[in-house]
Structure formats: C-alpha cells, structure tokens
C-alpha cells in the first residue's frame, strides 16, 4: 500500500461504498470505467438497502445522493449513456 493509498483509506467515511465510488472517479482506462461504475452502483444499492429504517443514516444518505449524481454524470459524459432528462 502506498502512502497515498494509506492516507485515502483513513479518509474513508463510508466503507460500504466509498472505496468503489472513488475507484470509479479515479479510473482513467475507459475499458475498465464501466466496471468501476457498475461496482460503485452495486455497493451503493446494497448500502441503501441496509440503511432502510435506519434513522441515523441521514448524512450518509445525502452522501449517497451526491455520489449518484456524480456517477450519472460519468455515465453521460464518459460512457456515452443517453440523457433521460432531455
């Protein structure tokens, strides 16, 4: 693990999905980007399910909502997904 990786790990606030999300953000290879985005989406979906009924999860839900917006922008701008909100 590099110093940079170690420093990043310490900043992980939401371990159930944040690593996958950051991996998608940092992915430079277009071939791998789709897999990274899918992995982040899956992790977020599973975490969202786990947060159902959890009254303490407000900040994380907001972070998830922001992450979803970012993933959508990546899908549109880098992966060529059509815009559903035309």
């Amino acid at each position: 693990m590099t110093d940079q990786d170690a420093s990043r790990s310490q900043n992980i606030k939401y371990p159930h999905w944040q690593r996958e999300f950051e991996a998608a953000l940092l992915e430079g290879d277009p071939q791998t980007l789709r897999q990274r985005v899918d992995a982040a989406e899956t992790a977020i979906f599973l975490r969202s399910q786990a947060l159902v009924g959890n009254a303490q999860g407000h900040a994380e839900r907001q972070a998830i909502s922001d992450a979803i917006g970012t993933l959508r922008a990546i899908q549109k701008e880098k992966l060529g997904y059509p815009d559903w909100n035309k």
Partner: protein
Amino acid sequence: MAKKCVAKKRVLLVDDNSAVRSLVRQLFELEPDYEIAGEAENGQDAVEKAENLKPDLIILDLSMPVMTGLDAAPLLRKLLPDTRIILFTVQQGSEIERLARAAGIHAVVPKDQAASNLILQAQVLLASVKQEHRPAKLRNAS
C-alpha cells in the same frame, strides 16, 4: 383433490448492471407467484426481448446505455399494452414521477426503499390487471 394451478407471473428484468439484475432476480425467485422470464441490459434490448417473452411485468431501470428506461417504456406499452411496468431507479422526486407517467410507466420504486416494496408494488399492479380483465358485471359488484 386436484390442486389449483395458478400461472406464475412472468417478469422481465431490465438493468445495465448485471449485479443489480442478479439481486432483483433473487428477490423475485423467493416469491412463489413469479418467474423471471428474461433479462435485458438496456432499453433497446428490452424492447427486442419483450416481444418474444411477453412478460406480465417489466422492472425497468432508468439510466442505461443505448436506450433509457423512459425512452423504452412507450415502445413497450405499444408492444404489450397489458404488461405492467415499474421504473426501479436511484433517481427520485416529482420530476421523475411526472416523466415516468408521461412515458406510460405504471409505478416508480426508488432503489433506496426496502426491496420488498418492489414485490408489493408488483402485486398491486398485477392485481389491477386481474381486476380489469374481470367481466364488467363482476367488477361493478365488488
């Protein structure tokens, strides 16, 4: 005594994320009244497969490559007017509800709600199909 044979409701899963499709498949496979008729990975794939599979219910993602759920829904409705469509999406809000309704989608279930809501919504929608197909005399009596 003869067992009453009830046809299982056929479901088409449409999502570009294979892991999400797999999770939703597992959810429906736990229910005795449903069977997964097929899977599609984008809206265009869904339209092509729906024509042959003739599902009772389509679980449709919103954001997908090639063709979005909102673009696929009107084509699916035209092809299979009796089939119920649920938009299963991470996006939420009144704007999504409005766009979904305009596209002919019957219900929107957010992906951050309990997964059991998806099954519940499916039951409600498919019960409404049954109701529509009852003779008018019986419908009015109930």
